[in-house]
């Protein structure tokens, strides 16, 4: 009977689709097979991730992805970028649409524990602040009672904002808009009195979008801790290790004084730390599952952390501050490569 055949075909289809669902392919193998890293970035936040006038993505978050591509594939340009809004980012990572989420994302417990993602490190220590037009004459965030506040949804910013106003017994009217360009547009059009996000984001927006940057002030209060860093899907520890150590390699290079310009001169260095770093001794790349010249490729093609910072963040007028290396009084402390 032809109907029985149909039923059998249906059953076969179900069995076929059931099998691959249980076995997950490793991200490292998938990346090597497709020969590029798919990286989730911001839709456009100068300094962190934004396309330049030639359409090339630039920024400190972009450099993390380029470093991973250099380590895994030996070419920092083998990255494809997926611009994501704050609301889309976690779903994109969970669903496997991207391999790394490097989109100025705050590391928090609930995100680490309940979203099925793992944060691997911090590439920028930030804090939330407020920006207001200078002509309002506001000097402190404590004077903001009754203000209209522009904010992006789906962020820790949104939650910190309500916490801060509740803690200080103040009222505010939120204007919540998803797209960054629209929310900053609304602020500059005067739809809100205040724009709030991470201080670096405020500086970036003021520099890049304000008709006259001097007309806007960033208030002195920093109301939260915002450790921003890349994250990967939970359950793929090897891939998490690669992203984590790619980030450390950029910091370690700064500590060792290796830059994209001088690393070739140090290839035959007698310093054992540098020998390990450039892959002359030890099999550190092999342990990670990549080439032994992984760290050399990162520094040669992307640069060390200081170079990335100077290139991307310094033009926004943001001091290095707590993002200095530990030995210079900052929080950046790479774990030893050995």
């Amino acid at each position, binding site marked *: 009977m032809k*109907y029985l055949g149909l*039923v059998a075909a*249906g059953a076969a289809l*179900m069995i076929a689709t*059931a099998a691959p*669902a*249980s076995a*997950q392919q490793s991200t490292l193998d998938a990346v090597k097979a497709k020969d590029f890293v798919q990286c989730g970035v911001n839709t456009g936040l100068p300094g962190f991730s934004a396309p330049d006038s030639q359409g090339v993505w630039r920024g400190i978050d972009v450099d993390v992805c380029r470093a991973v591509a250099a380590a895994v594939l030996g070419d920092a340009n083998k990255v494809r970028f997926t611009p994501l809004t*704050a*609301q889309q980012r*976690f*779903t994109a990572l*969970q669903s496997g649409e991207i391999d790394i989420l490097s989109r100025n994302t705050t590391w928090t417990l*609930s*995100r680490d*524990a*309940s*979203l*099925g993602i793992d944060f691997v490190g911090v590439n920028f220590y930030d804090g939330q602040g407020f920006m207001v037009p200078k002509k*309002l004459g506001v000097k402190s965030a404590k004077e*903001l*009672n*009754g*203000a*209209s*506040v522009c*904010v992006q*949804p*789906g962020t820790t910013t*949104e*939650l910190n*904002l*309500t*916490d801060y106003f*509740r803690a200080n017994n103040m009222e*505010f*009217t*939120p*204007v*919540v*808009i*998803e*797209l960054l360009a*629209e*929310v900053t547009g*609304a602020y500059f*059009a*005067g*739809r809100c*009195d205040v724009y709030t996000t991470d201080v670096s984001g405020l500086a970036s927006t003021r520099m890049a979008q304000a008709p006259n940057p001097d007309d806007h002030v960033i208030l002195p209060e920093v109301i939260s801790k915002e450790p921003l860093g890349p994250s990967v*899907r*939970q*359950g793929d520890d090897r891939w998490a290790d690669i992203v984590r150590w790619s980030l450390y390699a950029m910091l370690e290079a700064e500590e060792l004084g290796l830059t994209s310009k001088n690393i070739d001169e140090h290839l035959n260095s007698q310093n054992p730390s540098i020998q390990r770093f450039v892959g002359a001794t030890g099999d550190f790349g092999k342990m990670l599952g990549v080439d032994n010249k992984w760290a050399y490729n990162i520094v040669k093609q992307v640069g060390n952390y200081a170079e990335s910072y100077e290139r991307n963040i310094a033009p926004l007028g943001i001091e290095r501050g707590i993002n200095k290396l530990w030995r210079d009084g900052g929080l950046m402390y790479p774990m030893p490569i050995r």
Partner: protein
Amino acid sequence: MASRPQTVRRPPTAGVNLSLNNPTVRAILYQIVVVGAVGLVVWYLVSNTIENLETRRIATGFGFLDREAGLPIGESVIPYSPADTYARALFVGLLNTLRVALIGIVLATLLGTIVGIARLSSNWLVAQTARVYVEVLRNLPLLLQLLFWWTLFRDLFPGPRQAITPLPGVFLSNRGVQLPAILWQPGYGYVLGAFVIGVIAAVAVSRWAKRRQASTGQQFPVLWVSLALILGVPGITFMAIGAPFALEQPELRGFNFVGGVTLTPEFAALLVGLVTYTAAFIAEIVRSGILAVNQGQWEAALALGLRRGQVLRLVVLPQALRVIVPPTTSQYLNLTKNSSLAVAIGYPDIVSVANTMLNQTGQAIEGIAIIMAVYLTISLSISAFMNWYNRHIALVER
């Protein structure tokens, strides 16, 4: 005839024939197989999803609805603070969606009907204006129109400190339109009761007048008497309780206006955008409905001595409605679903709130399921109402 062999057809026996030769048995068997297969597919998808979420350690379930939301929501029909639960935040979003959808449907119907009739006007200017309106509005993407209205409302008016005051107590600024609010007085309950009585009385009068006209042919000024009942009865009650009346005036305090009623630029932009866009489609439906009525109906009614307005109201529209209502139902559904574009301009509708919620909790599947359930419920309710109305106005053959 009597010589036909007995073997050709036996009368059905009392026992049940369970063999596969019985078409009824075969039909039931196929039904069971199909339902079983569909059930298996659903079970497979659901269990597979749950298993995958577990292996990726993504939280599941609807427990998060009872947790504190912490989300700020810009406008709300009911009292809301960030200390409330996610469930309440979603409810606020749902009410915001319903608010813009219901007001939008009423206004789009009015505007669409006017424009549709205007397109058939014998006045060249009126007809061409309506035509340009329809062709421009329905051929531009709705999202573009929403952004246009929003930018317009945002940039047209000055900041709150330089607000325009066309009437005392009315302020126009880029924060929206501020209107004085009428404060509820103790006697207003009676006025509301009187209004309900007035409406019931008006309905009774119009039924009585219809019956009387049917039996005696005498007409009765139903419109004026109804208007007097609906407005007069509560009016007299209002005077009788001493006409208590107080306004809450909005005033500029600090950054913004405090008190009164606020019509935000986001709500205004969404409402205007949805109404003008949907009205263009409804106008075409109304026009097609009127054109669908045979010209002979007009001529016959005019020959009976009815005025043009009466012909339209008593003869043409009742027939046209049968053509108009079904496609208009889908325009209502479109308007409701299009209201989800509110996300782009920052109006806190259900999609906006649920999106934020699923982002803060990371529970995308549950969030999307809630959004789908909400839209399905709203759409099916509108559909059910319009189907009832369609049956109500269907041509009754006598």
